């Protein structure tokens, strides 16, 4: 089984598109950090304008934790697209290139092969999150220093003390990983249904975009649909920065995400183990 996982990882590593995600994250994170290094103070002055009329605000507001939080807000919505680019290709790519029959002729069951692909896809997703964490939080803290985190909301500021921040970031990255795992399994599931590599990638991206738009629109019509969309629960990482922690809401969202992973994986396994592979 480990050999199979290594083989799947090797396939991911040798594909140029696997590096697009890392490249995109690096460019975006460094760009945001550079922008805040140059213009961060003006940005914060604008945010704190109304409060600075009444108060003198002291302390290091522009710190690594704030920069990391802003990067996560901007980037986590886009990351599913980067994940789908690789995981949507895991099965269908083999079908398209004709290597799937060769793979299935090896002394492994279809379930083992799909498990190996899923685990390799998850390792890739984890590596993306880890890279994001290292760049956004690691470099952020190195360049901007430590301090209390100001959680920016349009109608509220939450100030979390420095010693209360790191575990929240670790939790946020874990939730982000779980959220992206939904995309991994969703695109893997679609990948099992087609024989060309583009369809599951484009279909995954389209679903994410449509769900995200529905989730963002403040229209009462969509209010009943929103709780059923996995994209609604993918942004639950933000709630880890609320004070007090909305534990019930987080638990519900984590269950929904986990439920989606199980559902998509089950469908993928059910179909792949019964699929009539002809090419």
């Amino acid at each position, binding site marked *: 089984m480990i050999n199979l996982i290594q083989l799947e990882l090797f396939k991911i590593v040798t594909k140029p598109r696997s590096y697009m995600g890392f490249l995109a994250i690096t460019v975006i994170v460094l760009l945001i950090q550079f922008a805040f290094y140059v213009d961060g103070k003006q940005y914060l002055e604008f945010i704190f304008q109304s409060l600075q009329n009444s108060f003198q605000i002291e302390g290091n507001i522009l710190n690594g934790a704030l920069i990391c939080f802003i990067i996560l807000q901007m980037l986590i919505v886009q990351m599913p697209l980067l994940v789908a680019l690789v995981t949507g290709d895991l099965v269908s790519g083999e079908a398209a290139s004709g290597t799937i029959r060769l793979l299935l002729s090896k002394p492994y069951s279809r379930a083992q092969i799909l498990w190996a692909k899923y685990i390799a896809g998850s390792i890739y997703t984890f590596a993306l999150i880890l890279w994001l964490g290292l760049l956004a939080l690691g470099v952020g803290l190195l360049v901007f220093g430590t301090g209390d985190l100001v959680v920016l909301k349009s109608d509220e500021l939450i100030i979390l003390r420095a010693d209360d921040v790191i575990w929240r970031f670790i939790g946020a990255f874990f939730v982000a990983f779980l959220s992206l795992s939904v995309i991994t399994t969703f695109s893997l599931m679609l990948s099992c249904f087609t024989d060309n590599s583009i369809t599951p990638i484009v279909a995954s991206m389209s679903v994410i975009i449509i769900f995200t738009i529905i989730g963002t629109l403040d229209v009462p019509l969509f209010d009943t649909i929103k709780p059923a969309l996995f994209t609604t629960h993918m942004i639950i990482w*933000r709630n880890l920065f609320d*004070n007090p922690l909305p534990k019930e809401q987080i638990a519900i969202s984590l269950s929904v995400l986990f439920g989606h992973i199980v559902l998509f994986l089950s469908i993928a396994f059910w179909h792949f183990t019964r699929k009539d592979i002809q090419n």
Partner: protein
Amino acid sequence: MKKYILVTCLVLIFVLSSLAQTPKELIAKVNKNFSKVKDYSADLAMNFAIPGVNIEPISGKVFYKQPDKFRVRTKGIVFLPKQNPYYALALLKDTNAYTAVSGGVEKIGATSCTVINVIPNGENDLILGKFWIDAAKGLVLKSQLTTKSNGTITIENTFGAMSTYALPDKIVFTIDVAKFKVPKAVAVDLNSKSAPKTDSSVKGTGIISLQFSKYLLNQKLSDEVFKED
């Protein structure tokens, strides 16, 4: 009956004795108390109740040096009033800089206070200052400052062991605050639900409370302590 007469007489003597002092004499008494303190440092515990800001209490150190140097040092982000707590006392020092008018007697808790209204003579950020002074002890228990730049600020002092130096155990600031609101795109808060619309011009009141302990007086503090980091 004798008891009632005695109590009434005592109250009358007390009230008359406070009224006997002119506003400026009373202010001079307050200044005299506070002038014993050249500088101090103390431990500080801060609490905040500011509309639209969710911030936890924090502790730190506070430093003061005559005439108006004041610095709070903490490890985190804090919201402080724009004026330092001794802004009002510093203002009262030059008795020629303002006109003081007596505003009668009012109770703050169980203490009868002489109310003195202060109107600056020249151009000043302060429009009107109202001070509730415990005439017997020469302590400002409450002050209300109406300023051009920051609206109205109310400062309530609670005195304890350091009252002989006019140093409070606790100061509570109540400050006018505009409702906090920034565009979603600026706060990168695109996925949050919109709160019900409210009038953003409506003002609330923010409360900052400073609890002092372990005062160390007249240690000849260096000016370096008060420098910005």
